[in-house]
């Protein structure tokens, strides 16, 4: 089993595919059910897409995390893009500034068990999510 972090640089739409494939492989390695692996791959796809759409480049880091009595997968999407001025607004369904569907962040939050976002206008955005194996 792989330990440590898998980092995928996100610079183009091809990298979105690479990131979600690596996420799915790691989820399978951890023993996630196929349906959960699909939820994880979909969340990674949306997070990587946000990077490409808003910040143009960034990184997705994947890591196995150990809880008290369970294992999980941690995904951290980070960029040095323009940041999100109003996070509360960005977490509302239907909000978008890039002409996309605007369901990225609230949707990702529903797909995962834990969701944390930090953003500074002009400095960048970091979204950290976790999915626990049930």
């Amino acid at each position, binding site marked *: 089993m792989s330990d440590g972090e898998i980092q995928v640089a996100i610079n183009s*739409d*091809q990298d*979105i*595919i690479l990131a*979600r*494939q690596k996420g*799915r492989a790691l989820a399978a390695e951890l023993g996630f059910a*196929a*349906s959960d*692996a*699909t*939820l994880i*791959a*979909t969340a990674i*796809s*949306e997070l990587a*897409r946000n990077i490409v759409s808003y910040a143009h480049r960034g990184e997705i880091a994947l890591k196995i995390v150990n809880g008290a009595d369970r294992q999980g997968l941690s995904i951290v999407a980070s960029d040095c893009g323009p940041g999100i001025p109003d996070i509360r607004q960005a977490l509302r*369904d239907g909000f978008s500034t890039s002409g*996309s*569907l605007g*369901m*990225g962040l*609230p*949707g*990702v939050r*529903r*797909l995962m068990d834990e969701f944390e976002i930090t953003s500074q206008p002009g400095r960048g955005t970091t979204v950290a999510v976790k999915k626990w194996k049930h």
Partner: protein
Amino acid sequence: MEVPILKQGDVLIATFQAALSDADLNQLRSGLVQKVVKFRSRGVIVDVTAMDVMDSFASRTLREITHMIRLRGADTVIVGIQPEVALAMVQLGLTLEGVATALDLEEGLAYLNQKFATMH
């Protein structure tokens, strides 16, 4: 990776591969519409059985394809959305509203044939 488009009588069939980039999806959108015009097709089936992830971009592209082809007077049906993909789509809030779906290729053809029959 280009999506193959097959012509079967009045119907075009596009079969998605597993990992399609945004560029591939955009290419499919324009390729399908061009072929609908060229062959005067009355129906389009988009088979997504092999797709392992349907994110907001793929979902939006499918909706756009359907709406563009509808403006040409033809019908589109999406077939083969896998159960776990459907689950992820619903949680993400992607409902493919206004887009016809069917279980598989056979059901998709039956749907289109029924549509063609009611138009006579």
